[in-house]
């Protein structure tokens, strides 16, 4: 079976699809493909959007066409090798886990018949992979969350999830880079800014990096610049 297939997306865009599953070996292929495609397309490339198991390749239609593009992509992707799931950097993100900073901890513990401490342990013992960045600037989709912690999204999304909220949904976890609406289950707060438009780099993580969460105390959280925004968290489940 071929490692990938090419599908049209638009008059100047092509999708590179790998086997459609969330898995480290697939993410490794996406990761390998990024520099290969950049090099092969050079100035023809307008935008490259990697995700879990695909890449959207947008090209300049005035310098390239679909025939040429497919030839270039097939040439580049012939160099892919399965089993080379080279991880990126290992990034540690501190998290203040508590019922104050993680309003859904108690619900998860109750649903999963675990103690709150077990929930925290299960979340931080896993090494996650950055599978994709999107939805909002700096929003990194991390996987996979331990099976015992699998939680559906909230039936009613919160109108305001605080900046830095560490949350889980299904087998995914993420840190909200800014205040936004959101339906994931909040279990803590991370003081590390996930998106700083004026910094270089703007994000502490990139697709392909590994992330490990490390529990910190409330005082460490404050010392690292974290803010406990009580009014935001108290909206839990009350907002439509």
């Amino acid at each position: 079976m071929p490692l990938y297939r090419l599908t049209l997306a638009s008059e100047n865009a092509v999708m590179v699809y790998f086997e459609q599953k969330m898995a480290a070996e697939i993410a490794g292929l996406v990761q390998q493909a990024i520099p290969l495609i950049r090099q092969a397309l050079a100035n023809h490339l307008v935008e490259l959007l990697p995700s879990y198991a695909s890449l959207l390749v947008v090209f300049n239609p005035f310098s390239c066409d679909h025939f040429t593009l497919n030839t270039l992509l097939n040439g580049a992707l012939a160099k892919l090798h399965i089993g080379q799931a080279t991880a990126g950097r290992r990034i540690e993100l501190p998290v203040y886990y508590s019922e104050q900073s993680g309003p859904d901890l108690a619900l998860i513990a109750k649903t999963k018949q675990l103690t709150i401490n077990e929930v925290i342990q299960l979340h931080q013992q896993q090494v996650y992979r950055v599978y994709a960045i999107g939805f909002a600037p700096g929003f990194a989709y991390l996987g996979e969350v331990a099976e015992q912690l699998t939680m559906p999204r909230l039936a009613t999304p919160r109108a305001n999830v605080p900046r830095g909220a560490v949350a889980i949904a299904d087998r995914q976890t993420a840190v909200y880079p800014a205040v936004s609406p959101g339906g994931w289950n909040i279990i803590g707060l991370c003081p590390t800014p996930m998106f700083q438009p004026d910094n270089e780099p703007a994000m502490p993580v990139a697709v392909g990096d590994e992330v490990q969460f490390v529990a910190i105390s409330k005082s460490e959280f404050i010392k690292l610049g974290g803010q406990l925004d009580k009014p935001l968290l108290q909206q839990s489940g009350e907002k439509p």
Partner: protein
Amino acid sequence: MSYFEVINPGVLSLIQDQGRFGQGALGLTNGGPLDAGSARWANALVGNALNASLIECSIGGLQLKARCATTICVTGASLSLTINGQEKAMWHSHSIQAGATIELGMANQGLRAYLAVAGGLKITAHFGSSATVMREGIGGLYQNGAKLQPGDKLPMLASAPLPLRRLTPAQQPGFNFNHSDNRDVCSNNVRHGLSLRIVEGYQHQLFSNVARQRFYLNHYTVTPKADRMGVKLSGPAISCTSQSLLSEGICYGAVQIPPDGQPIVLLNDRQTLGGYPKIGSVLSLDCWQLAQAPAGTVLRFEQIDPQQAHNALLLAQARFQRLLAEVNIIAPNSRTGANNDNS
């Protein structure tokens, strides 16, 4: 510093250039003018580079006070343009004296108008572009995604009067998308409203032949759920055999079909990743019509293959270059500015 002052931003006025590209790895979308063709002409008619920063005014109501002399041009949705209370032509450059008041009325056909100044607005690029994306808090006058506010000062370089240029009415695009006979949606023989060309792609194979026939043979209506992210349509529901997808990259013009079967065409400020099935993408050349179409506009989709799409792009580019070369110069080398402004 030379500048225009915003007296009233109208309904929604945003700084835009051609858009922000190559920042998808951070989750940043493209932004840029919803009607790229009109924005391009606004810049071209004042002699600017096509990527110069200008104002996109949605619905209308923008009022500016000129604090320096320059040349401006307004294109896009049809509305009344007045300079110091005098009615002036759109798609036509005009000399402006310091102290002049420029006012845009409310759009009567189309939704988005573009105002360019000679030399372009001098906006600090944010991630490589001035394009304002409010949802992301990126770009714009203050690099924070804010829309224009009363009192904002839009920096520019004062410019000596330029030759005045215009597009003739025959050369301008039309903005009347709903003719009176469009209401007769019972007959398939009448050409109704807009026709949007579409290149099939993405998950198109997950749509049955029946679903695809339904998509191409029926009319859809633009709903009020339309903004810079995308336009929701209403019409016969399209079903898809797929359950859930892994989130994947969404390109400009992508037509996604959520579980309710009502298509959404994704535009400039779309989110970069999404998990709904997509049947294909509207040709970029046709997307401006959607962004200019008020709620209630009737449209249909027409399938084209990627070769036809590529030809259409090259033809449109060639046509633009030809028009640019023949564009009428109304008052060459005017020294007295407004006096020669014979619109």
